[in-house]
């Protein structure tokens, strides 16, 4: 390999890009990410259901927040991860990035769907309707369509690598929607409430609600990492079926 990078972090990334190394990495760490993420989510949910006091306005229905908000964050976060990988896949043609980007899409679509469903379940008691066409809700629906479009395009092309590149391109074009989702509450006046939780500066949210929210948020992130690693590993094995390292791993004699 020409010019082996010296910086250890850069070198690690280079190593990770090699399919056999990634396979080992994913096999080792995916269960940990799943386990830790699951535990954090369960703990957060327990706090949310039993420790947080009922809201003086909304009663108990607001507890759906602890699913809705982390899922909503994930729906945007995963799109970002997908777009970054898509960019790397298009510019440097790294196979692993293609697969990572493509395997982000179904997970992201699932979280987007959860956001939409929990949002409308919550909307019924608070706004009196399952659905309205305001900017936040609409742009989130568009986000779902974008995820589905990426998946559909990836599935519709026979050659796996071309398919990944085409779908990556779509993912990059669709990134304009992400800031729209996030800032829609500021740009248009909507039913949906504005940002209340800030990383920097004071949050306008009750402190007792912050802890469970942080736990579920962290838990979903870890769960996503586990799921992404596991899916990508399967896809990689599938793609490299003829290669030596896969044969060795599956115990197929050469």
């Amino acid at each position: 390999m020409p010019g082996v990078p010296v910086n250890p972090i850069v070198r690690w990334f280079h190593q990770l890009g090699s399919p056999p190394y990634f396979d080992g990495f994913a096999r080792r760490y995916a269960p940990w990410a799943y386990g830790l993420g699951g535990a954090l989510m369960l703990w957060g949910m327990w706090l949310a259901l039993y420790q947080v006091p009922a809201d003086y306005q909304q009663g108990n229905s607001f507890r759906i927040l602890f699913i809705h908000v982390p899922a909503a964050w994930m729906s945007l976060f995963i799109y970002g991860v997908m777009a970054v990988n898509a960019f790397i896949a298009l510019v440097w043609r790294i196979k692993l990035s293609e697969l990572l980007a493509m395997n982000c899409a179904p997970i992201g679509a699932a979280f987007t769907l959860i956001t939409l469903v929990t949002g409308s379940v919550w909307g019924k008691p608070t706004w009196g309707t399952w659905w309205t066409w305001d900017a936040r809700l609409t742009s989130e629906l568009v986000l779902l369509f974008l995820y589905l479009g990426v998946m559909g395009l990836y599935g519709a092309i026979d050659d796996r690598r071309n398919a990944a590149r085409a779908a990556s391109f779509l993912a990059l074009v669709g990134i304009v929607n992400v800031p729209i989702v996030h800032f829609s509450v500021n740009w248009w006046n909507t039913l949906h409430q504005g940002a209340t939780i800030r990383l920097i500066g004071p949050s306008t949210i009750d402190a007792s609600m912050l802890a469970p929210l942080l736990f579920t948020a962290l838990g979903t992130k870890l769960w996503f990492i586990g799921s992404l690693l596991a899916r990508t590993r399967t896809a990689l094995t599938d793609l490299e079926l003829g290669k030596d390292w896969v044969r060795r791993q599956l115990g197929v004699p050469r």
Partner: protein
Amino acid sequence: MPTMMLNTPPLLQAHQLAFARNDEPVFGPLDFHVAAGEALLVQGGNGSGKTTLLRVLAGLLGASGGDVQVNGKPAEREAIAEHTALLGHLLGHKGELSADENLRFALGLYGQREGITRSEALQQVGLAGFEDTFARSMSAGQKKRLALARLLLVPAPLWLMDEPYANLDLQGIALVNQMIEKHVHAGGAALITSHGAYATPAVRTRLLELTHG
């Protein structure tokens, strides 16, 4: 007119060129070159990768390994576009345009070789009098001839010809060989794929065999 220019770099040079689809190699690492004044015959059975090779050389597909040089320089899009003309399985005619209109469009895109007019080219391929016939109402052989006229007209010196003999009867095959001979003797070059059942042109010819897988 000189038949060979030995002190210039070859028109096309491939070094360890390989292509893989879904990580399955279609053709292995190949080394070959085509110089001005000669033809390269690419032979191989069904599915051996002849068409794929031509598309890689034309820049329509990206190679998975190795590199290609056009006229001594790395094969960038511009260099390829300037030096090569492709005659593929699909001929690129519009059925609703006449023979002459089809040629005009091609010249608008590619520019025109000196010393030959559209009607002369049509005549050379045996389509004199067909200037105003719609491509749609031409027989398969005539369509192929129209595509050959395009090759005669554009300035590119290297012709990439995928199965130029297919669909032609014996007369048509002779015409193709004649065209290639003339082009090569005038300092051009050609890369021709074939199943191997046809007569080849009478020029200095090199052979590249593709084997399956």
